[in-house]
């Protein structure tokens, strides 16, 4: 990291600063007096788990949001960017996770859109193509600039986005998860470009949850959690484990002290869910997973490790390149959520508001929805049987509402989640995948949902539990499969299922726990 030193000593002026910025939405404080200082030529990592406020901070920096409190300073002066275009004109370029270029247009047209070189008042394509090739060449990217963007791989498209950003004379380049769709070799090229930018005195804000990348490229790091800055300092002063601990808000030393709860050893009954070699380039690489009846398997991993992606691939919601999913030994048709549900596989999605409940329907209608075929005879729904089913589940799951006809949108988050659960339980599934089942619901309801999970397991259901909360995974699971960068990195079973062990597994095996604990 020698190249970082020279510049850090030469230039110390902050180029872009956020001072005590607060961003509020109805009911949520996305940023709570967050401060952030970016020095000229610095490569500054911005990290945090889901909902930590990274995106909000980026939106404040690029003029998408105007802070409700605090201010943004650019070159020492308070500024106000009305939109991304204004920030871009001032020299702040952003590269988004999803490539934001025009797929139908050529590489050169994308790079020069809005500032095409002209000759006699008309666009000079020869000159434009020449300049575009020159920009790309300088950063070590060789390609046909007249090819339409969509004919390129995602990684190369991302490079084109970088080329556009740098050719705009940017002083600050913000990269939001730029490597999420890149191959290892492409990441290498991106890093080379970032180092070149750094040598030219361009500051880079680098958002990623791939720890290796952060340590490889960044000099400074700011960690956000729940809309607050929880750590800021030199990257070199942290270990992976201490960075993960800061992101998750866990005290490493305390985690080590804590005893793991007892976990049942599941005997060698054949697995009810058997996943083999699930491949979805570049997000999932050869995922194997077994779930036995009555077992709760936790999926551990940091944001972006591939937990939800695994759930969606198993269900057939997202297409996969390779791999098999079998329920009770019978392989299910790939890419068909309907077939998965038919086989007894059910997913409670992370985003229940958009992917699950229908807010304007009643509790009864929401529950009965998936079970309609079972409740009807010759296409006519039996009201009596539906009512019986609904009242049974409302009692069993303890859904608190004025009655089965109350609209679901009027319920609390916890009760909405129970309605979703009831809907799928009426299908009498064999395997239930729960993706963040307790997100956004209050403490009491959380405990109820957790008890419910245990109860379902006791009844012989196989469960897969995905949660960002360490204690939830540790206490709720019999076994934890840890994902990292779309691969199975580790598996914890029996007495080893502890918060400390999980933290260690999340950060990567290389770090010794004793050393990590000493840092924390």
């Amino acid at each position: 990291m020698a190249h970082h030193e020279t510049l850090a000593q030469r230039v110390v002026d902050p180029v872009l600063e956020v001072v005590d910025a607060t961003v509020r939405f109805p009911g949520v404080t996305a940023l709570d007096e967050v401060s952030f200082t970016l020095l000229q030529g610095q490569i500054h990592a911005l990290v945090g788990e889901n909902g930590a406020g990274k995106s909000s901070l980026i939106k404040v920096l690029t003029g998408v949001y105007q802070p409700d409190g605090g201010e943004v300073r650019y070159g020492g002066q308070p500024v106000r960017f009305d939109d991304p275009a204004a920030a871009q004109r001032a020299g702040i370029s952003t590269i988004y996770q999803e490539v934001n270029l025009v797929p139908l247009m050529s590489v050169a047209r994308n790079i020069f859109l809005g500032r095409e070189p002209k000759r006699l008042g008309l666009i000079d394509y020869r000159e434009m193509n020449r300049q575009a090739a020159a920009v790309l060449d300088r950063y070590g990217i060789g390609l046909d600039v007249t090819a339409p963007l969509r004919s390129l791989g995602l990684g190369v498209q991302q490079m084109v986005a970088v080329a556009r950003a740098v050719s705009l004379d940017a002083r600050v380049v913000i990269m939001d998860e730029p490597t999420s769709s890149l191959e290892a070799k492409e990441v290498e090229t991106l890093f080379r470009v970032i180092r070149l930018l750094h040598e030219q005195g361009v500051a880079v804000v680098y958002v990623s949850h791939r720890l290796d990348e952060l340590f490889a490229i960044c000099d400074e790091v700011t960690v956000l959690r729940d809309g607050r800055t929880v750590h800021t300092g030199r990257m070199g002063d942290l270990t992976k484990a201490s960075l993960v601990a800061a992101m998750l808000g866990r005290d490493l030393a305390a985690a080590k002290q804590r005893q793991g709860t007892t976990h049942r050893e599941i005997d060698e009954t054949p697995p009810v869910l058997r996943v083999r070699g699930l491949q979805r380039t570049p997000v999932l690489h050869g995922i194997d997973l077994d779930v036995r009846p009555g077992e709760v398997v936790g999926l551990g991993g940091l944001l972006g490790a591939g937990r939800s992606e695994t759930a969606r691939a198993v269900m057939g919601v997202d297409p996969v390149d390779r791999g098999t999913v079998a329920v009770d030994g019978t392989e299910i048709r790939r890419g068909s959520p309907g077939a998965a549900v038919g086989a007894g596989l059910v997913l409670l999605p992370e985003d229940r508001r958009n992917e699950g409940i229908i807010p304007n329907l009643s509790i009864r209608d929401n529950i009965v929805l998936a079970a309609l075929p079972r409740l009807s005879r010759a296409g006519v729904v039996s009201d009596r049987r539906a009512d019986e089913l609904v009242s049974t589940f409302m009692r069993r799951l303890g859904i608190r509402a004025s009655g089965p006809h109350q609209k679901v949108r009027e319920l609390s988050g916890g009760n909405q989640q129970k309605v979703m659960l009831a809907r799928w339980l009426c299908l009498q599934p064999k395997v239930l995948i729960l993706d963040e089942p307790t997100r956004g619901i209050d403490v009491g309801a959380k405990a109820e949902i957790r008890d419910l999970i245990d109860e379902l397991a006791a009844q012989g259901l196989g469960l897969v539990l995905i949660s960002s909360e360490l204690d939830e995974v540790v206490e709720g699971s019999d076994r934890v499969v840890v994902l990292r960068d779309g691969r199975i990195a580790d598996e914890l079973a029996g007495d080893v299922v502890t918060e400390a062990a999980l933290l260690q597994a999340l950060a990567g095996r290389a770090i010794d726990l004793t050393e990590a604990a000493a840092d924390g």
Partner: protein
Amino acid sequence: MSGSDVGSRDLPEGPPRASPPLPPALDEPTVRATSVRPGRRERLAGALQRNVSLGLLVLVALAATLAFPDFASRANLSNVAIQNALLALVAVGMTFVIISGGIDLSVGSVFALGGVLAGLGSAWGPVVALLLPLLVGLAIGAFQGLLIGRARMAPFIVTLAGLLFARGAALAISDQLPMPIQGEAARMVGQSGVAGLAYPVFIALAVVGSGAVVLNRTRYGQSLFAIGGSEEAARLMGLTVWRSKLIAYATTGALSALAGALLASRLGSGLPTAAQGMELNAIAAVVIGGTLLTGGAGTMSGTLAGVLLLGIIQNLINQVGNLGSYTQQVVSGAFLLVVVVVQRYLTREQRL
């Protein structure tokens, strides 16, 4: 001007822009993108899609010449030209709008209003007879564009309202009667010409030509492709999306009204009931010409070929003689369907 410009002007100078010498070019590019070139199949599909209407036009014209000796006669060809020149004017604007990802349903009504206004303005001479419709069409289009671009309302609804409004205005102004064009000079524009072709044909050719240049060789044209291709990306890349849309709809309005005025000049009066359903013919011509209805791709030459294809089919059916105008609609409809199906297939081959 947009408010966003203010932000950048108020901006402090900031730190001195670090402008060291450009980094040396790396010895060897590290990314040699392997998938740079679309496959042969994809390229063929792309070329076919861009030129399918032109190819069909040549085929149909050849077949027509062989089957009907009268088709290639000078009189008939000049007839085809004048009959399609006005649709071509409207279709140029429609091409801009569709490439930007929008649609304009108001063109037929604005066309009729243009004819009526030409009659109204002809009392003050030929210049007013042309300028009045042009300006009113421009204003209607600009207003629609403002609602679509600035208030982000759906083009379908905004221009449907425009369709009702302009037709109503045309009927109200003319009291539902043909509006005579006064003065010989104002009628000359539509009725006379040179080299056996009426003036509107030359106007249409000039507009199609300039349209092609604007589309392909100006920043404005590129902005339309970008907006139609990915509006969000265009906005994030700093384009003033609403302004580009406003200009596209304003152009379409002006051209539609101008075309209406030219027809009125040719017929000697502006009919408030003229050009009913013309918006559908214009959209059909543009789509047959290879422009994606979803926006982001298209050519002016394709649009011209689309207009002529529809026109020649109509001409051929007239030559057969015993087929009514309804048959022509049936054939045009079937033809449009075939072209769209073929395009859909070609689009999928290119994995657009």
